[in-house]
């Protein structure tokens, strides 16, 4: 019996908006004009004008709406289920934040509005700066960078400015081999060479290797703490001494800040520069790959070089409330990293988050994130420890890394197979194949907003997939089955790239 067992919607053939275009259809209706019909060519010389229209689709509004609505259903999302993507802090995104960001006083505020007429926005930014300074233990904050890696770039540029201001010319930046790809990529963009520092058998920075590489031409060490293995660097104080000993800066990649808020502060550890990923620790919705925001906090000695403009508070001279301003006159500043003041809409959301949680709440968020990670680690160890051992078997912070090496060896299942099979069970898979030091890595970050029941169910599902594979590994090897498309041919896509519609 050849019954159709898939909803057409689920397995419908992808059709682009261009393929729905029919000449003459439209959604947009022009607002009333003053009847001016002057030919455009009388206002702009013809040779500067388009001769052929940009081929945009011609579709009615109901059909545009359906098109993107249906497309949305071809995405998995955090509001549907667990999304334990390591290093990404996929915590719940409160709906309140969308509401406050959409207030016309925020959403329709022009970025070039005179600061005297944008006092609410500047106060919000100033207060957010203060909160980030308190959480990081570093007193000076710039909200400008657009995302984490933009913050990293700011950090490298600040390091350069700092050293150049002292007449020093350095050429290298250190980063552990577990570091995130943005770290070395940033180093290159910043005009330095990356020097990889080894990690030891416990997953910690190898102090001997660090000492060996900590030469006078080193400008900076970039570190994530907890590391991308989810482990707190136990020797951070010593690391700080080594780095500062050679006059280099210590840079904190804040992607993992969600582990330690209110428990420990990068500034107190000796870091000079920190970036925050507001879209991670401070819950900006990830938007399918942004927007994010990557503010930086720095120590006193780095402060003079901060990007400009800087949001400042000015005491009033006449007993009125203080006022807020954008300070441009910063002679040692590295300058702007982008237009205007940064991703303000993200600031609103993160500020709302901080207001909602308060200091205690942030601390409890981190504590629960660490509790959840350790619990899930323990459950997976219990249920799947043979095939999926914890890579560095000790208490973790907010995330942990499993190795799929035994699973691969014994069941013939690669980490990617496990990941794809998880899709059939309604889970987003963890981060896979990162960090590089762990074979067949599976990096799991449940976040604090998940329940114990969800973690239990996830662990049991992983166990169930392993059980299934002992019987028939082909099932997972060919997974997924229940997604809008099945495994995609990435090699073909890269070989002969089709990256736009030809129509």
């Amino acid at each position, binding site marked *: 019996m050849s019954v159709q067992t898939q909803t057409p919607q689920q397995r419908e053939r992808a059709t682009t908006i261009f393929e729905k275009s029919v000449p003459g259809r439209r959604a947009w209706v022009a607002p009333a004009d003053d009847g001016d019909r002057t030919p455009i060519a009388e206002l702009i010389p013809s040779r500067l004008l388009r001769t052929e229209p940009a081929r945009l689709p011609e579709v009615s509004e109901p059909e545009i709406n359906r098109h993107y609505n249906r*497309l949305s259903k071809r995405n998995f999302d955090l509001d549907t289920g667990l999304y334990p993507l390591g290093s990404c802090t996929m915590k719940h995104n409160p709906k309140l934040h969308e509401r406050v960001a959409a207030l016309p006083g925020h959403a329709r505020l022009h970025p070039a509005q005179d600061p005297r007429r944008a006092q609410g926005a500047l106060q919000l930014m100033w207060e957010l700066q203060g909160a980030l300074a308190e959480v990081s233990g570093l007193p000076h904050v710039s909200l400008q960078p657009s995302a984490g890696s933009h913050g990293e770039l700011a950090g490298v540029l600040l390091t350069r400015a700092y050293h150049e201001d002292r007449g020093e010319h350095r050429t290298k930046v250190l980063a552990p081999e577990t570091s995130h790809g943005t770290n070395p990529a940033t180093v290159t963009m910043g005009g330095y060479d990356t020097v990889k520092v080894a990690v030891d058998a416990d997953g910690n920075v190898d102090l001997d290797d660090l000492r060996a590489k900590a030469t006078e031409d080193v400008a900076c060490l970039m570190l994530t703490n907890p590391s991308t293995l989810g482990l707190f660097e136990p020797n951070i104080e010593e690391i700080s001494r080594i780095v500062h000993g050679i006059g280099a800066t210590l840079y904190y990649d804040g992607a993992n800040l969600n582990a330690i808020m209110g428990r420990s502060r990068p500034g107190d550890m000796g870091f000079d520069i920190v970036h925050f990923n507001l879209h991670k620790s401070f819950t900006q919705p990830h938007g399918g*790959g942004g927007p994010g925001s990557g503010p930086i906090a720095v120590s006193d000695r780095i402060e003079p070089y901060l990007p400009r403009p800087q949001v400042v508070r000015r005491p009033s001279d006449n007993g009125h409330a203080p006022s807020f301003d954008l300070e441009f006159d910063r002679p040692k500043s590295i300058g702007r990293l982008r*237009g*205007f003041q940064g991703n303000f809409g993200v600031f609103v959301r993160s500020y709302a988050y901080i207001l909602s949680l308060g200091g205690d709440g942030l601390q409890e968020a981190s504590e629960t994130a660490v509790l959840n990670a350790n619990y899930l680690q323990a459950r997976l160890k219990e249920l799947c420890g043979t095939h999926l051992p914890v890579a560095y078997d000790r208490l973790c912070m907010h995330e942990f890394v499993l190795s799929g090496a035994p699973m691969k060896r014994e069941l013939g299942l690669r980490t990617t197979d496990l990941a794809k099979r998880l899709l059939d069970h309604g889970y987003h898979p963890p981060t896979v194949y990162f960090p590089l030091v762990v074979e067949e890595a599976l990096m799991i970050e449940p976040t604090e907003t998940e329940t114990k029941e969800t973690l239990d169910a996830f662990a049991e599902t992983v166990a169930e997939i392993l059980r299934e594979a002992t019987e028939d590994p082909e099932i997972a090897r060919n997974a997924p089955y229940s997604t809008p498309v099945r495994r995609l041919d990435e090699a073909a896509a890269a070989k002969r790239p089709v990256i736009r519609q030809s129509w």
Partner: protein
Amino acid sequence: MSRYTAATDADREAMLEAIGVTSVDELFASVPEGLRLRRPLDLPAGRSEQEVHGHLRDLAARNVSTEDELSFTGGGMYDHYVPALVDSIVGRSEFLTPYTPYQPEVSQGGLQVMFEYQTMISELTGLPVSNASVYEGPSALAAAGYLARVHTGRSRFVASRGVHPHARETLATTSAGWQTTLDEVPLVDGVTDLEALRAALGEDVAAMFVAQPNYLGAIEDLEAFAADVKAAGALLIVAADPMTLGVLRPPGDFGADICVGEGQPLGNRLDYGGPSFGFFAAQQELLRRMPGRIAGETVDADGRRGFVLTLQTREQHIRREKATSNICTAQALNALMGTVYLSWLGQEGFRELGELLVRRTAHARQALCALDGVRALHDQPVVREFAVGLDAPVERVLERCWAEGVNPGLPLAGDYPEHPDGLLVAITEQRTAADVERLAAVLGAAVAAERSGAEVPA
């Protein structure tokens, strides 16, 4: 229990037991003693949803938004009408809450949007390849500079002074470690000085940057540059206002190598400057040097059409220090807004809206320049923004207009000291002919009052 978490006391006990510890403190044992924060964070206590909402509403009320005044402010971001359709689509949690589509099987929605977006940007710019968005306009220009630096191996940049001041500054900031220099070509009559440009070109030039239209609103004659820039072996990098590309000949048609720009005008709200998106399109041969995500079409195991992130060997998570860029989290949601918006305008609407702007801007320019004490700063054709000079102190004129609920635009003096009396005036479809009349009346009166030496109202 803090907000948004679920662990009850009973949960916590059970979980600690399963972990094999007796307290949450033990979980933090790896943090060295001396680094433990032994006091609560010095932040206000948490508040209820209604209180947070109330506080933020109060702050928002202390801003003068384009809803609160008649604003003609532009200068890179514009108060276009954002249709409800855009809000509705981007508000869907399936677009709002996932991350980068690392698992394409459950990310076809986002990936296809990127593919559609790339097609639209390619159509707008007249260039064959587009990535899936970068942060925003000025940093997109800097990213194009990085590409040019690496691609040409040359060490000098030449930028028209008509390029947005933020973009020129961002390029300067970002290139600090590239061992490049940056020369500026002045404007004459509101457009890039061709003579000076030619003089600035040379064999060491990696790229020439020009804005279309430029910061003073003037349309640049790209044809006039292109050949010289090419001849010098440099890349021609155009920073375009996408909203003008419904009427203007696309940069690709003139042989531009790269076209970047600020995507905000395309269905993104102002948001006090961000988040928006930057677009980045280029000639085919630069494809493998592009920064950022790129979605490509392929097929699945059953031959079904699908989309994936492609050419990932350019990217930091694969190539690390050899990546073409460090960008990771970008602006996917904002690019989606742009995609829905362009679908909504459609082929005809995009052109018609451009034409509406041209006509209304011409009318506004005429109306203002007819005022006593107001003159055009240049006579170049414009699309949606123009510069005037005031025979009165600009700051004081502005204050007078603000008091009337009108914001006539941006003073130029800060970024263009050569125009101490300059004012940049932008038009969108939200400013009606009647609004323009009101602008003329209020601005005219303010200039007149200043010239007659009247007191500024409190």
